[in-house]
């Protein structure tokens, strides 16, 4: 495009942006067309699921003669903008896969259909899912999406360097220090990526932090619970247990893990396959739920994952719901696991030997009973970005832990200003 840097289209970027604005304005006014009712159901699926879900469709079509499903693949990197743009343009499909943290935003837009009534009379029931997995899909007491698979994070560790999986934070730090001593002169112990907010938020949740307060209208980062978690997190870097630095470390995680430069990583199910493929089989490793800082283990982890949304304006909502029911069945959840490694959201699917008999997967099963959702507001993603930013400042020492929490509260309060205005106060 014009911005490719050559002159023949000089000004192209701005003109293009301006054009987009016109198109958007047009779309907001509402020029969307509705599709005819006899066209196939459309399903938007992202990333890896988008590639494999077509293989699951024939079984659905065989069961429901007369229904056809068209799958459109969307890369994760473009999924969010595509979703919002299609909503504004009135061009949404019948069923969409979404990251479950997007549900609150879609609810604000009025894009999803409420599902409580359908679930009451359906073959899938709300009790079929792990409560912690369902929770991110529930906004203001209403279910707006159905969990498809779970992406929570747990501890991946070298079982030869850390013989017993730590159950508490104290045991965790001790085990990491011990592993570091064995790892050689350049060794660290745990890889925490500076660009990721998830490990810190998991630790904060373990301390009991709620992150926001007063109906999610203000930041609550100066709360002692969050402050303690941040101090713990920063200390992991200061003491050298976590490597500071090289963004290149992210690329070398498998190599470093195999070499013992790091002996633990907090990561998710997508890495089960990667670790199995990239870490030499001579290296002993295992997985364990997140250690607890207080109370009985495991400590909580994030209720990440993807959900299926029934679009409110779908002209064939009943048929679309049949597709969601189908994809939610234990058999299809196991099929999805076989195709992608995704972990089922449906409790019954976990009785399958493929999942139950794999000890590395079983650790995820224990974690599923201790999940927490991030605050269910559209602003969360932006606030999370600020957490990354100020946590890094605290780690690098350009800010004290107290300054960082103060700055975080100020940033969050700024981002939430519109929310407070909309709610008219916040009590």
């Amino acid at each position: 495009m014009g911005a490719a840097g050559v002159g023949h289209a000089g000004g192209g970027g701005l003109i293009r942006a301006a054009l987009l604005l016109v198109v958007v304005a047009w779309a907001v006014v509402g020029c969307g067309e509705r599709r005819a009712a006899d066209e196939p159901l459309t399903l938007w699926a992202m990333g890896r699921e988008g590639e494999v879900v077509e293989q699951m469709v024939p079984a659905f079509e065989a069961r429901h003669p007369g229904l056809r499903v068209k799958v459109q693949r969307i890369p994760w990197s473009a999924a969010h903008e595509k979703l919002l743009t299609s909503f504004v343009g009135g061009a949404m499909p019948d069923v969409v896969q979404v990251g479950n943290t997007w549900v609150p935003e879609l609810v604000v837009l009025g894009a999803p259909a409420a599902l409580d009534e359908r679930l009451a009379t359906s073959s899938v029931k709300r009790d079929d899912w792990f409560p912690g997995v369902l929770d991110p899909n529930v906004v203001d007491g209403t279910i707006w999406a159905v969990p498809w698979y779970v992406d929570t994070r747990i501890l991946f560790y070298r079982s030869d360097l850390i013989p017993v999986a730590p159950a508490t934070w104290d045991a965790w730090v001790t085990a990491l220090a011990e592993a570091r001593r064995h790892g050689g002169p350049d060794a660290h112990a745990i890889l925490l990526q500076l660009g990721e907010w998830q490990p810190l938020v998991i630790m904060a949740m373990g301390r009991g932090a709620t992150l926001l307060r007063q109906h999610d209208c203000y930041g609550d980062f100066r709360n002692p619970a969050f402050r303690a978690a941040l101090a713990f997190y920063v200390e992991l870097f200061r003491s050298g247990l976590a490597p500071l630095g090289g963004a290149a470390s992210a690329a070398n995680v498998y190599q470093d893990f195999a070499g013992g430069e790091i002996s633990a990583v907090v990561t998710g199910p997508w890495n089960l396959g990667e670790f199995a493929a990239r870490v030499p089989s001579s290296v002993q490793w295992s997985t364990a739920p997140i250690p607890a800082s207080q109370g009985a283990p495991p400590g909580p982890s994030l209720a990440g994952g993807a959900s299926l949304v029934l679009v409110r304006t779908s002209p064939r909502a009943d048929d679309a719901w049949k597709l969601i029911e189908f994809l939610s069945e234990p058999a299809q959840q196991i099929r999805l696991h076989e195709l992608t490694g995704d972990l089922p959201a449906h409790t019954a699917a976990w009785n399958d030997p493929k999942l139950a008999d794999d000890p590395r997967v079983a650790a995820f099963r224990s974690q599923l009973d201790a999940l927490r959702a991030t605050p269910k507001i559209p602003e969360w993603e932006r606030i999370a970005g600020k957490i990354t930013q100020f946590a890094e400042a605290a780690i690098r020492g350009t800010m004290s832990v107290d300054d960082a929490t103060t700055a975080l509260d100020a940033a969050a309060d700024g981002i939430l200003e519109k929310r407070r205005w909309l709610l008219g106060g916040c009590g």
Partner: protein
Amino acid sequence: MKRWAGLGFVAPALGLLLVFFLLPTVAALLLSFTDFDVYTVADPSRLRLVAFGNYERLLHDDRFWTALRNTLWFVAVAGPLSVAVSLAAALLVDAKVVRGRAIFRTILFLPVVTTLVAVAVVWRYLYHPRYGVLNQLLGAAGIAPIDWLGDPKWALPALALLAVWKGFGFNMLVFLAGLQGIPERLYEAAALDGAGRWQEFRHVTMPQLAPTFLFVGVITAIGYLQLFAEPYVMTQGGPADSTLSVVLLMYEEGFRWWNLGYGAAVAVVLFLVILAASLVQLRLQRRSVA
């Protein structure tokens, strides 16, 4: 009567400019004084006027400064590089000793007319840390592999290389036109005075090309200030925002998160930056002509 006829002829073009350029630009300017966001998409009554609030936020937004720094770096490094490479290429294909000049011209111009997305896919292979040709060449020379697109230090230079390769053909053609506009007698006079190749270049070619340099400089700078497609396709602004450009930031704010008010403010600021850069160049041009 005559005046009306003239207006009639330009009316279609003026109309298009009005509808597709002026109107959206004014709309964007107005939008930048509002807090149009995802809440407003759902319900227009949730729109508020915020005056210069978006601009104030922009001043305190680290990502904006990162984006501006990256963009200016790109202009400062890729711009001169592009001009140098295209001038060198133009001199080569203009040289009379070269046979089949038309073929070379076409080949060197090819990247300009190739779609960037297709090019980006190929370049991602070239830049691949393990299997990429570039690292294999470095390896043959005994240099440790570089994670071109994954290392914050190298990602922007890697994109600059791609952008220069992709775009130099156009500037080359402009230089070529400039070179062919230099009267032959100047070279003959220089030769009579005993000028060598280098002196000819220094005292005939360069001064004669001055207006071309300015044109190419302005156009290239404006183009690179609007850097978008390369980082969007290759790195999505990462790693660690090291390839985040101003236009990419605008796009992310506006169309990924639907903070259209804030995105519009970014667009307006970029417009002012480009305007300022163009004015400076124009001033230089006047001085050189005078």
